[in-house]
């Protein structure tokens, strides 16, 4: 078994876009890393700071929120709200010494299966480069 760090990533995906895009990526037989665990949410407007915090507390190395393209939210501005919450949390994490890059916001549409796979790959690579969450490192020690 390889010793390479395999991050645990939680993705909060909107049912109208990124969740469907994940299905499409699957139908298209696209390859992407298996590190991401998807949580279906009705809109990224449902995303709350505490959901990501709980994920980090439970040992996630990274969290991202994937919503519709800006201007295309089914509930008008859920994705804009989520973006602000992600920015707020990134700042709070930074203040307690956790890399703000461990949380991110992505936008895509339901028809963007390839982009879904690309995002999973990109975010997984980013988190691999950061290494395990500083919270987890100490827990294991």
């Amino acid at each position, binding site marked *: 078994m390889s010793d390479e760090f395999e991050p645990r990533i939680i993705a909060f995906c909107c049912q109208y876009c990124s969740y469907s895009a994940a299905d499409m990526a699957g139908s298209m037989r696209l390859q992407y890393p298996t590190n991401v665990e998807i949580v279906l949410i009705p809109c990224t407007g449902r995303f*709350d*700071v*505490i959901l990501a*915090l*709980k994920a*980090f*507390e439970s040992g996630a190395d990274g969290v991202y929120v994937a919503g519709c393209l800006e201007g295309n939210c089914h509930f008008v501005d859920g994705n804009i709200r989520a973006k602000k919450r992600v920015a707020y949390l990134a700042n*709070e*994490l930074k*203040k*307690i*010494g*956790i890399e703000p890059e461990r949380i991110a916001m992505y936008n895509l549409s339901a028809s963007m299966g390839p982009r879904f796979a690309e995002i999973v790959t990109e975010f997984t690579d980013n988190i691999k480069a950061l290494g395990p969450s*500083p*919270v987890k490192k*100490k*827990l294991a*020690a």
Partner: protein
Amino acid sequence: MIIAERKPIDEIKSFIEGQKKVLVVGCRGCVTVCNAGGTKEVEILASLLRLDAQKEGHDVTVDEHTLERQCDPEYIDELVEFVDKKYDAILSMACSVGPQFLSRRYPKENIFPALNTNFIGGALAHGIWAEHCQACGNCIIHKFGGMCPVTRCSKSLMNGPCGGSAGGVCEISKEVECIWHLIATKFMEEGKLEQFAPIQPIKDWSSSRDGGPRKIVREELVK
């Protein structure tokens, strides 16, 4: 309502440095409505403190509890079951009344304010609050078109506007509207300028803070 906001995380961390068992106490009153110290904010602060401690490899327990209110003794009493669990530090997420009431009721506990109490105000929109009352103890807004110059004029002028009013904005900052401009405009638009004209007498500040800390006793309610 009372508008407050959470203190910077660094300041809160400094309160609990070296402590092993911490309790974060929220309040379901004003600070829940202004998203500063309700159940949700308690969860977020407690989670951030736990993450911070875990990251440093410190074994710290951070518990959470939200009281109905922290400005009434009967609710403060409810915290006794938590206090019995012996916390090294208690962080109150109420306005400054909360940590003061907690300190009086539980004098042996290490109690800290996790919020800064800012002002009495209202929500202009979700996430935006503005000061509207200074609790001067003698409301006179009916004389000013329903607006409070005591609070909303930077100089608390009773006869404004002053020479610093320009284009509806106060001289102290482009971000501050001149309330006297709004008052005058309202009277003009309603064609009631004569009601605006009378010179207001000097305000009696004895009902305000100038008379020292205030207290109200309502005999018909006192048991």
